[in-house]
């Protein structure tokens, strides 16, 4: 579990990233085809962060995520079919249709509950680690949250508390840079903070804080190894700010498939990259970046990556079919589990 891995490990993490990418593409298609409605969010552009950080966790550890949770669930080992069924509101969903896309979580994989309220993950992650500390399980927790969460006071309170109570938690702020609109209108803290970064705040509280290129799989992998080792060793909080360039599909309220279905061959064949979103394909997309790095390291050749992708796609297509075949929940169960136990 410890230390940054070699090429084989990167290849494994790349598999997780690719699974997330293909999963999100399926989610988009299901929405576009009208299989579910309502607001939703995709993790495209941040796959390296989730995969690399979560890759260092053990079964005793827990993670807490946000409205943008699909990638975290998959990296933690969540079942794509049950996740898609959940997004579709089916009985076979992880939460039997109670969670939806906003709240994907699965206690069986150390992801007990997902808050879709901005910043909600932060005290919950600290709390889970605090519980583990007092119960002496040896587990730690990771809280993922966006840069926007930094604007919510409860996040600041929790950073302060984690330091005060020495809570073994890793805070991972996924700073995906506010959309052009928000930034132009000044409606975001990162539009005035030096360098658009939130890290000066945990630093001011004396929390060990690191900034990393969140789209660089190797870099996140190495940093997460160190950071988690430190959390486990020191029994206190560590803060990581992972910077990514916002996926062009994430510029308005609903995701758009601005960059199309990912063409993995763009990783080795720059000729396939057109002028539209050139920067994204050439430099920002974490999946393409990781693929290029794997080729560079000789961990795989293009054919091997294509084969891997074909496998992942097949898995997601199967998950999609399983999810669509899952029955609707029984309306008579709508009142189950409001309260636990005999008290109901």
């Amino acid at each position, binding site marked *: 579990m410890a230390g940054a891995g070699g090429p084989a490990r990167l290849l494994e993490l790349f598999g997780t990233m690719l699974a997330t990418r293909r999963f999100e593409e399926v989610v988009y298609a299901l929405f576009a085809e009208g299989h579910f409605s309502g607001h939703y969010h995709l993790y495209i552009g941040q796959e390296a962060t989730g995969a690399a950080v979560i890759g260092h966790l053990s079964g005793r550890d827990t993670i807490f995520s946000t409205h943008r949770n699909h990638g975290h669930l998959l990296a933690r080992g969540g079942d794509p079919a049950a996740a898609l069924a959940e997004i579709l*509101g089916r009985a076979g969903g992880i939460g039997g249709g109670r969670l939806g896309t906003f709240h994907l979580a699965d206690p069986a994989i150390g992801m007990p509950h997902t808050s879709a309220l901005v910043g909600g993950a932060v005290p919950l992650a600290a709390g889970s680690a605090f519980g583990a500390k007092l119960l002496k399980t040896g587990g730690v927790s990771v809280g993922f949250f966006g840069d926007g969460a930094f604007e*919510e006071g409860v996040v600041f309170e929790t950073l302060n508390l984690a330091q005060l109570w020495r809570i073994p938690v890793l805070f991972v702020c996924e700073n995906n840079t506010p959309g052009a609109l928000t930034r132009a209108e000044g409606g975001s803290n990162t539009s005035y903070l030096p360098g658009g970064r939130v890290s000066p705040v945990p630093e001011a509280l004396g929390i060990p804080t690191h900034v990393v290129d969140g789209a660089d799989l190797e870099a996140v992998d190495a940093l997460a190894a160190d950071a988690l080792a430190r959390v486990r060793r020191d029994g206190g909080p560590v803060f990581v700010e992972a910077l990514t360039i916002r996926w062009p599909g994430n510029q308005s309220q609903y995701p758009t498939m601005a960059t199309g279905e990912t063409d993995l061959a763009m990783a080795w064949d720059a000729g396939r990259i057109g002028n539209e979103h050139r920067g994204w394909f050439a430099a920002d997309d974490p999946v393409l970046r990781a693929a290029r790095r794997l080729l560079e390291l000789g961990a795989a050749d293009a054919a091997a990556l294509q084969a891997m992708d074909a496998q992942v796609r097949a898995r997601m297509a199967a998950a999609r079919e399983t999810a669509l075949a899952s029955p609707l929940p029984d309306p008579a169960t709508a009142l189950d589990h409001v309260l636990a136990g005999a008290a109901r």
Partner: protein
Amino acid sequence: MTYSEALLGAIVEAMDEDERVALVWGSLGGVSGIKLDFGSLRDRHADRIVDPPISEAGIVGIATGAAMAGLRPIVPIGTGSFLFRAWDQLIHEAGGAHYMSNGRVTAPLVIHIRHGMRGGGGVQHSQSPQAMLWNAPGIEIAMPSTPADAKGLMRTAIFSDNPTVFLDHQMLLRREGPVPDGKHAVPFGKAAVARPGRDVTVVAASLQVVAALAAAATLAADGIEAEVIDLRSLVPLDQEAILNSVGRTGRLVVADECAPRCSIASEIAATVAEKGFDLLKKAPVRVNRLPSHVASSPVLEDALRPDAGRIAAAVRGLMD
């Protein structure tokens, strides 16, 4: 005109008319693809429009302080669930200011939220906080059901000297209806008879008025004439309109999207039981969201929803 356009009209008009009206831009338009075009409003009043970060408590606290200073800020919080983040500031500071000062300070802010079950909102994007709010003194609560009332009540909210929570149901935003031109104000505390009827009184507000009207249409086919009372504002409440109607019909159903306990329906039923006991021929009936959080799946959401079918069934249960 749509409900959203009418609402927006009242805001644009008030900002053009009165320099004290300010707007925290944000999410007034709502999700679900509705985009309100504020047109040139932003250009005309750039100095009175700000863009909010995600800091509900801070923003409501700031708006309260600004209102004490004479500003009339309109603060869209977006999904009503998020208002819980600012609960303390709203209830203790905005709601308490006038009383504490013995009537010398006012806090005329308007908090705008989109409440209710929206289809897939789940536990954390479907709240109807109006019942909790009604338990807090010092706060006016407006809940329109038509485009015309959205416009007229928003005007009243903006120029009221009290803090007002203005609730739009997410599913009303696209509703079409006639809207009076110009400065149209609908006073708080005056219920509307959305449909007259002699057999049973159905009290509702916001989207539940739509559900009640649908139920009434069905019932009419069976010769049952339901009178639908649209409260329009909870604070102040038009108690007389309710009691007058029940005085004529002798039967009461209250339709309400809040969870049942300590709900709007509980309050109306209790008020009528207490003040109009002798008017009642039958027990009052509450039609609420079932006693649960809101599940994400549409199937479960529908099972929990108080709808025309449940309202009609409740009415039928009273007729014999």
